[in-house]
């Protein structure tokens, strides 16, 4: 028999945390099938009403809108993060590498509130962009960027950039440079080399980064709440309103649950759609 010293000591704390998480998810599952008793925090009997209510236009649209928001954000983040990740991995100067790393990763640790607040100052009617455009004489009335979807997307892209850079860079750093050298010695120019060698080989990082950006955007609350200002409804802002404005926790639970199922479905779908490309990257 193989000895496994301390196995119990190593695993049991983790089991406790896992139990806590499972209990929380079970609580959501249980509340999602219970009736809402207006004006009370207690819940009524079993019902499927919470799930049929999800089909009402407001919620169906919010769901669809959230998915689009996540896809838009993840796409723009990917486009902006790729060059940074590439530079981070390939740049030779150590100081420059550290600078790129600190500059692109610091926002990750600032939390959603600080970053969202910063974007409110950038995008507001008296904010940075409008002031600059006004003093340059390009506009005379402020551009409305707060409370709009593009404004929310800009801030969300900023929120998801660091994690995307990290995941893309991790993928890029594992590429064997000899493949590129081989392509070069066979006469491929830099663009062709990038398109046919580097990009396909970095696909695993792209898939991981894109799905994480999608999930993070779906999870974002402060950004759509403060920059969307009630004009841009997402699943997260609706769950909060349902919970803390109308105390309809059963419906909030069913909405969260639907969101969770959808996140997992989208991530699974993305992984599946990318599988042929990913296999290419593994070769």
């Amino acid at each position, binding site marked *: 028999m193989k000895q*496994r*010293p*301390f*196995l119990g000591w*190593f*695993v049991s704390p*983790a*089991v406790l*945390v*896992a139990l*806590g*998480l499972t209990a*929380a*998810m079970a*609580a*959501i599952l249980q*509340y999602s099938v219970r009736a809402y008793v207006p004006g009370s925090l207690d819940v009524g009997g079993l019902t499927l009403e919470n799930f049929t209510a999800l089909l009402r236009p407001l919620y169906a649209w919010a769901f669809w809108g959230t998915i689009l928001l996540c896809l838009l954000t993840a796409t723009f983040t990917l486009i902006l993060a790729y*060059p940074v990740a*590439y*530079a*981070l*991995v*390939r*740049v030779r100067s150590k100081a420059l590498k550290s600078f*790129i*790393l*600190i500059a*692109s*990763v*610091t926002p990750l*640790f*600032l*939390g*959603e*509130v*600080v970053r969202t*607040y*910063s974007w409110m*100052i*950038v995008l507001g009617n*008296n904010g*940075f962009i409008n002031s600059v455009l006004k003093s340059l004489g390009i506009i005379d009335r402020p551009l409305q960027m707060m409370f709009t979807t593009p404004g929310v997307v800009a801030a969300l892209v900023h929120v998801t950039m660091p994690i995307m850079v990290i995941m893309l*860079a*991790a993928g890029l*750093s594992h590429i064997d440079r000899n493949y590129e050298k081989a392509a070069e010695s066979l006469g491929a120019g*830099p*663009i062709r080399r990038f398109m046919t060698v580097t990009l396909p080989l970095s696909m695993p990082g792209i898939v991981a980064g894109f799905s*994480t950006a999608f999930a993070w955007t*779906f*999870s974002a*609350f*402060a950004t759509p709440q*403060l920059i969307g200002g009630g004009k841009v409804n997402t699943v*997260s802002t609706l769950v*909060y309103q349902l*919970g803390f404005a109308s105390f309809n926790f059963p419906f909030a639970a069913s909405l*969260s649950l639907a*969101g*969770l199922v959808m*996140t997992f479905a989208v991530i699974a779908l993305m992984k599946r759609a990318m599988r042929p490309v990913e296999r290419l990257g593994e070769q």
Partner: protein
Amino acid sequence: MSFPMRKSPLALAGILLVAVILGFVMLPAIVVTITAFNDKAILAFPPQSYSWRWFARALSYDDFRKGFWNGLIVTAWASTIALIVGSGFALALHRYTFSLKSTLEALLLSPLVIPHFTIGLGLLILSAQLTVGRGFPLVVLAHVILVLPFVLRSVFISLQNLDGRLELAASSLGATPRRVLFTVTLPLLVPGLVSGWLFAAILSFNEFTATLFVSNQTTQTLPVAMYNYVREYADPTLAALSVIYIVVTALLLTLANLFFGLGKILNVDAH
């Protein structure tokens, strides 16, 4: 400044592109810094006059002070618990096979993709069902769940880089498993443990969405206090606080980079 090739027009365009994107990344921090020193309560660019008064207000505002201490309490507990739980589990993952290993691993890593509001709502409902109040233990539990994946990853990566022969040597010289663990394995893991703890602490201190759900007036952390402030007031107090935040975080990260190599922790160094 050197891209792999000679400075071709393509490489120059690449450098320019990366510079512009990094500008986008740093723009909010720059704007918030200018705002923080704006003397007037109303936003204006460029500010007419400058002062430190918003910093003074940010540091003396009661909710921020209380949120700061609450945040420290929650962060200290949560990151330490996460470190113990995470390093234990990372050791088990690295060394052993046991039943439900992959299930447990998937479950503990799932908070990376489960929305924070879902975890917050679930714990809130759970606390209501168990009729325990929304006290510190609930907030700490939420934070442990959320930061554990990061600790797990950090410790696991250091374990992979650890030379297993050192442990073998120790045990072949007659050291008990306990002695090997405490005098060989753990000391060798210190960089990974410290960086994992630091990572967890920074993330926990800044966690907002789940905390908003599970905290109340007496347990609210700094980000929740800041969120409540921005909904009520529009003066640059929060900008001043954000600047303090940005400076402290950048300093911590620079130190982490100097001592541990951030690239290694984040697994982005070229091999």
